[in-house]
């Protein structure tokens, strides 16, 4: 068991590793992986007469990973003028999505209702997805403020699932399974996911089978996507935050090597002491 003092030293080193890049302003450019590239291409390929659905299932705890992913995707969608809708089966995701979208809409001059819409928090996700698989607009009916979707220009021509070009689930949980089972699978709509890093290994089978077209692997995926949208040397949130993550990874590796070296030396000393 770790001594308290050792643990406190480890925690202080970690805090320093996370904080240092913010003070020094260092940014390490990311290298784009195939999953982020595939998602970028899938978004680019969405026709202008279709809508992209961003399903935001996260809460405050996973904002560190899911919010940069949301922001990177919204930046791309608004930059390329694609229509998109935000929604969520957890109450907080669409609220944070609205805040980010409002800020980015001002930057890219994409007014609400014309380029994007917030469908808000939806309960009973199985029933909602099944209803959407029959008629998206009829299942949702109003935006998060109660305005009928028929009054919003962004929803013009969006009725059946065939009018949905891509669904991207930004989630720390497994709602993507329900999306695949009840909407994207039966209606044959393309699907991608932006999970937290710990869930990435679970998603690979779906990428391999073609059930998903791309993935953003946690904060690293967000940084890679920002590199695609803005360039590798940009200072968007994901790219700058990944520098701190890089420092912590190096710290963890160094500590593991140090711990093992100490243990090997101690074991050898005991062995020598024992045979002497």
């Amino acid at each position, binding site marked *: *068991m770790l001594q308290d003092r050792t643990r406190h030293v480890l925690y202080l080193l970690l805090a320093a590793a996370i904080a240092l890049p913010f003070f020094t302003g260092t940014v390490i450019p990311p290298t784009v992986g195939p999953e982020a590239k595939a998602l970028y291409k899938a978004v680019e390929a969405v026709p202008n007469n279709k809508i992209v659905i961003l399903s935001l299932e996260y*809460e405050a705890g*996973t904002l560190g990973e899911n919010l940069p992913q949301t922001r990177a995707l919204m930046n791309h969608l608004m930059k390329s003028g694609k229509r998109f809708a935000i929604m969520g089966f957890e109450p907080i995701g669409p609220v944070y999505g609205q805040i980010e979208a409002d800020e980015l809409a001002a930057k890219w001059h994409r007014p609400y209702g014309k380029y994007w819409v917030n469908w808000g928090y939806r309960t009973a996700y199985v029933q909602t997805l099944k209803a959407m698989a029959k008629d998206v607009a009829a299942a949702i009916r109003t935006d998060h403020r109660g305005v009928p979707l028929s009054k919003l220009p962004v929803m013009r021509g969006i009725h059946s699932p065939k009018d949905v070009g891509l669904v991207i689930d930004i989630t720390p949980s497994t709602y993507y399974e329900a999306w695949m089972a009840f909407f994207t*699978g*039966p209606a044959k709509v393309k699907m991608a996911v932006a999970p937290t890093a*710990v*869930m990435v*290994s*679970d998603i690979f089978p779906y990428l391999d*089978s073609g059930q998903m077209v791309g993935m953003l692997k946690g904060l690293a995926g967000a940084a890679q996507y920002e590199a695609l949208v803005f360039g590798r040397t940009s200072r968007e949130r994901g790219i700058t935050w990944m520098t701190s993550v890089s420092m912590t990874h190096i710290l963890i590796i160094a500590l593991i090597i140090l711990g093992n070296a100490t243990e090997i030396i101690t074991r050898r000393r005991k062995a020598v002491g024992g045979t002497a």
Partner: protein
Amino acid sequence: MEHCTLAVGILEALVSALILYKIASARRGRSLFIRRIPGLAAIDEAVGRATEMGRPILFSPGMDPLSIVTLQALAVAGYVARTAARYNTRLIVPVRDPAIYPIAEEILREAYAAEGRPELFDPEDIRFLSDRQFAYASGCVGIMNRERVAANFFFGYFYAESLILGEAGTQVGALQVAGTPATTQLPFFIVSCDYTIMAEEFYAATAYLTREPVLLGSLVGQDWAKVGLVVLIGVGAALATVLGPASSVLRLMLTQFGGG
């Protein structure tokens, strides 16, 4: 798929029939072997340790609402409760879903009564903490630190809070046994717990602990069904290799099994 295809229906029927056949065979008295699962064998050790130290045990049935995983976790909780009652050790069960609370209360009450110690049962030891993930984790960590638990059991479906629970338990010096089918959380339990029961071993827990013929038979049937499905996968892989992805036979198989 919304409704099963003919092939899936036949497969389901065959798998179920095999499991039921093995259950019937076990009920007729046939003895069945099950290998040792260290994590489950350590339950008695953990409860004994808590008894010696005079400190309580914490059992968390996971984060899922009432489901197959939670039912299995509660079945293990019942076994742990009987062992704790036998050794006169206190068991605390914090739950996340309020629907599980009355079920957990009933299980523990009956477990203590079955051991002839109904007076040891304290309803306040089953606590609904919160249905919010990190509020629940914080509550469990608080219980571990205030009550200085000697043993922790984490059985059920867990998410990101698994490492918080495991590390907090390590810091108070508790012996920890975890069992979960959540593959994403296995690495965290493996590094922070003394024993980890992973994936399908979790579903074998009740069979292992009770040695009931019905459960053992079901376990053997499920293993044989797995062998059959592995053979089917091998046949599919061989066909795909030999015939190529565009072949009509392969397309038919993909359509029938939901991939087409």
